[in-house]
């Protein structure tokens, strides 16, 4: 019975979403508080209903209730409990439920933490969120309903796709969705502002925490997805410019641009129209990503089931929201007043450059992703736009952007002093060059460009520290005073420094791995030895093993350095019994930030087996950098200024701490 109640809760959620999408917007138009008060209440109710429905579905997975078609298709009673639960979103219907849950969660958070918003804006934002919710509820109920039943129920399920039977499934989709769907809030703020026809600097301040939160989660989600693909798929790569990856990367690029343009808008009330447009575009790209991944247009591990009606439904949602928002934009934007002026060389100017490059690179990735699809639809010709295109176009675009990053925070608002900023930077650039070359010599080998690439990474790291250094005035003031000033800096300053530093760390990792990586593909028999990255691996042979729902052949390798055994590693090929599907489980050994990656290939007739061994120097920097960016995001989110309007937070601890020092 509980399952039917869960299904009904979902239906009731649709009714609630309908109410929330009609009444509050009327209230906002008339200024009627009773109708507007309905918005937060209905939004929170909506979240509770969806959360209940989602937990019922999770329960059905946990107890293996195969009377649900969805559970029967994607679960197996012998799977470990953690995969039974993560399996909820390891399929099309369940992942749409997670999408919906995240969407209603964000709406509820706006309802709860939006106390500092004007009543009408809040009601309108929640209304737009409710519209999106209605669209996705309709989509789920009519094309992807996870509560469809089977009678009589089969005795055993068809198992979860083995590639997804991994702890990564517990982390990657929720984080990614928190990012993807988080941008819906920015979209709703933009549409709400356009509906009201009024937009000003305060709007940018209100939307900032939501952009930051979404951006932070999306960063983490993409990084986690990349790491998961790296260790699970056994190809040894960490980014493939796969359309599905691009689908998540485009909102990230646009979201990064939004984060920066909203700063200009908040400080100077400039770039208003552009920022609103970016907010709309970012979520549009999220929706486009959902369409590409869920419609079955692309074949990948993410496209669970292909059903044309679903694709058309999502396309309709896509056209409605993107089209509607752009029509509204075209109608309202000319009525918006433009804001403050600024000189080309200024903080604003640097941020405009940032936006320009990020937008162009988003367009590049979009072109590279959609062009093959469009071409195939129109002419039937199949082409693939791969890494060479992206590496060249995207890579070239990134270089000026990365060079400009440390300048931004150092330039003053309105009109900056480039010479002054240059003076501050050249020390950093020199240090970075030295560090880059030092790193290069330590690794010994590779083209000179790599040293420059490494220097670029260090330049970003040192550059972000410079900003904090100069703000605290460490060079000129006594250390104690400077340190007190350092502690008094706003959290957002630390946040942006950390985010820029994280970018530098990622660049370091990318350059190091691309340049110094070694790959060996060899046929090994027990007792044979291979060398990689200064380590030698001895293959000890294969062994059979049985897991809860798979059997595997595990190869054991003993790893030694200079004759001393330092570690051992298992690498295996699994067969998942229910689907008779093989997977490879790479053996990965971590030494500092570098990794040794061992993957088994096909067995040979003479008792040997093909083994691929990669030495990946400094590869963890790639994801470590993303983690640093994420921490930067959270630090920035904790900034007191984002909570303006919450009266209890009006205290000024920073100033008090400052007084004795001055």
């Amino acid at each position, binding site marked *: *019975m509980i399952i*039917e*109640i869960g299904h*009904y*809760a979902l*239906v*009731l959620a649709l*009714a*609630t979403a*309908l*109410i929330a999408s*009609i*009444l509050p917007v*009327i209230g906002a138009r*008339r200024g*009627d*508080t*009773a*109708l507007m*008060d*309905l918005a937060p*209440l209905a939004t929170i*109710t909506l979240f509770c209903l969806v959360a209940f429905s989602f937990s019922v579905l999770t329960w*059905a997975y946990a*107890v*293996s*209730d*195969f*009377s649900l*078609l969805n559970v*029967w298709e994607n679960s197996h*009673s*012998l799977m470990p409990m953690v995969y039974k639960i993560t399996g909820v979103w390891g399929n099309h219907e369940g992942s749409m439920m997670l999408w919906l849950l995240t969407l209603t969660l964000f709406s509820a958070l706006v309802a709860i933490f939006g106390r500092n*918003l*004007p*009543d*009408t804006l809040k009601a309108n934002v929640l209304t737009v969120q409710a519209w999106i919710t209605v669209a996705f509820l309709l989509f789920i109920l009519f094309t992807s*309903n996870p509560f469809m*039943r*089977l*009678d*009589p*129920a*089969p*005795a*055993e399920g068809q198992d979860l796709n083995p590639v997804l039977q991994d702890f990564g499934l517990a982390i990657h989709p929720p984080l990614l969705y928190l990012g993807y769907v988080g941008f819906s809030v920015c979209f709703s703020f933009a549409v709400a502002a356009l509906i009201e026809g009024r937009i000003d*600097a*305060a709007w940018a301040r209100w939307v900032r925490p939501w952009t930051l939160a979404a951006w932070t989660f999306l960063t983490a989600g993409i990084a986690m997805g990349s790491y998961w693909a790296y260790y699970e798929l056994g190809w040894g790569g960490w980014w493939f410019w796969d359309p599905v990856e691009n689908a998540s990367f485009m909102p990230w690029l646009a979201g990064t641009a939004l984060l920066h343009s909203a700063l200009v808008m908040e400080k100077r*009330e400039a770039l208003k129209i552009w920022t609103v447009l970016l907010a709309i575009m970012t979520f549009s790209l999220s929706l486009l990503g959902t369409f590409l991944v869920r419609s079955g247009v692309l074949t990948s591990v993410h496209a669970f089931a292909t059903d044309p009606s679903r694709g058309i439904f999502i396309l309709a949602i896509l056209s409605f929201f993107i089209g509607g928002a752009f029509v509204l934009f075209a109608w309202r934007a000319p009525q918006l007043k433009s804001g403050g002026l600024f000189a080309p060389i200024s903080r604003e100017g640097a941020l405009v450059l940032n936006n320009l490059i990020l937008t162009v690179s988003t367009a590049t990735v979009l072109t590279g992703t959609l062009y093959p699809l469009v071409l195939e639809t129109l002419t039937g010709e199949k082409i693939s736009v791969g890494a060479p295109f992206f590496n060249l176009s995207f890579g070239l675009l990134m270089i000026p952007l990365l060079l400009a990053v440390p300048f931004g925070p150092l330039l003053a*608002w*309105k009109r900056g002093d480039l010479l002054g900023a240059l003076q501050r930077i050249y020390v950093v650039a020199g240090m970075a060059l030295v560090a880059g070359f030092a790193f290069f010599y330590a690794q010994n080998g590779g083209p000179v460009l790599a040293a420059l690439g490494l220097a670029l990474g260090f330049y970003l790291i040192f550059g972000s520290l410079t900003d904090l250094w100069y*703000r605290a*005035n460490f060079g000129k003031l006594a250390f104690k005073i400077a340190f007190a*000033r350092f502690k*008094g800096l706003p959290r957002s300053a630390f946040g942006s420094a950390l985010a820029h530093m994280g970018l530098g760390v990622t660049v370091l990792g990318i350059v190091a791995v691309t340049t110094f990586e070694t790959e060996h593909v060899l046929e090994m028999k027990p007792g044979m030895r291979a060398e990689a990255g200064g380590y030698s691996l001895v293959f000890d042979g294969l062994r059979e093993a049985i897991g*809860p729902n798979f059997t595997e052949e595990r190869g054991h390798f003993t790893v030694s350095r200079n004759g001393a055994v330092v570690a051992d590693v298992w690498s295996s090929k699994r067969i998942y019994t229910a689907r008779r599907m093989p997977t490879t489980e790479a053996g990965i050994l971590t030494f500092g930030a570098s990794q040794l990656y061992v993957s088994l290939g096909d067995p040979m007739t003479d008792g040997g087996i093909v083994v691929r061994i990669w030495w990946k120097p400094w590869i963890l920097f790639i994801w470590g950098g993303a983690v640093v960016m994420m921490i930067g995001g959270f630090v920035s989110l904790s900034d007191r*200024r984002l909570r*303006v*309007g919450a009266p209890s937070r009006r205290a000024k601890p920073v*100033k008090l701490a400052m007084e004795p020092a001055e």
Partner: protein
Amino acid sequence: MVLWIVLACFTAGVTALLIAPLMKASHLTVADGEDEAAVYRDQLREIDRDLGQGLIGAEDAGYARAEIGRRLLAVADAAAKVAPAGRAPARHRLATAFVILCLPVTGLCLYVTLGSPGLPSQPLEARLANPGNDMALLVAKAERHLAQNPNDGAGWDLLAPIYFRTMRLPDADQAYRNAIRLLGESPQRLAGFGETLVATNDGIVTEEARVAFERAVALDAGNMRARFYVALALEQAGRAAEARGAFEALARDSPPGAAWASLVNEHIAKNGGAPLATAAAPQMLGNPSAEDVAAAKDMSPADRSQMIKGMIDSLAAKLKDDPNNIEGWLRLVRSYQVMGDATKASEALQAGLKTFPADGEPGRRLLALAREIGIPVEGATQ
């Protein structure tokens, strides 16, 4: 019934929650700009702090203050222009009615179309604890037991023939191997194992299968099944005379009216002899004739599967003309499932259920088969 009461209470609760704000006294509000002003005042304080820390110069701070001051004024201006328009409605009759109607109407209409109110939850543990006569559940239960105790030979011995009947051939193969390894050879196990191998190889008696059948015959000369396949192996090896001898011996030793008699006779004829056994029951509908099996031997895999498809199609056509044949339907459903065509299998199942409704004995056999081989049976409610 309980479900409907719960759903009704659920709806009523949500409705009551959502009409609460509409019941309160309402007033009209205008955008007074107070929230914007709070942000700008905070920005002013920020400038003071930046100035104090020497992050910006006094002149820049002055400009910035002026700019923010203009924003504050603009907000105040805008607020002054909009005055409250009229009085707030005392009651929200229309809105309340909308909320009260929307929830139950949307909820009920959609749920009645989409839901399956008659179906209880069915957690697997509870079903396994009380499996009744559901063969699939009993198999699942045995599988779980064996996953914990993989050395229980009796369990494998029990499951192996069931796997074979439901055409889960790789599982049957594994189960027979385990049973033989743990319990030792017996004529039944060896013959069953051999038969699994033959089925896996599209009717060809492979070397491994032949060895198994010969050992079975060595253990029990009365195992007719094993003897049949030994003879078939000879026939497939092209040793017609020996094959004929073996088939003739088989026919002689068979009880009169044995089910396999006609099949054996065909093979005798095929290897150049005269029928011996007393033919009894006509050949089962849809079974491949001996010629078919023999022909299949020389075919390429593609041709062979083409032939099998042809046989299934002719069975389907026969059943269309004369649907009153429960054995035929059972065979058709199973054949489609073996061919990996789940859609057709379930179509055949539905067609069979039209002639033999689920409440009769033959209909129940069809459903039991469906459950056994894992064809989903759509609930009557959908």
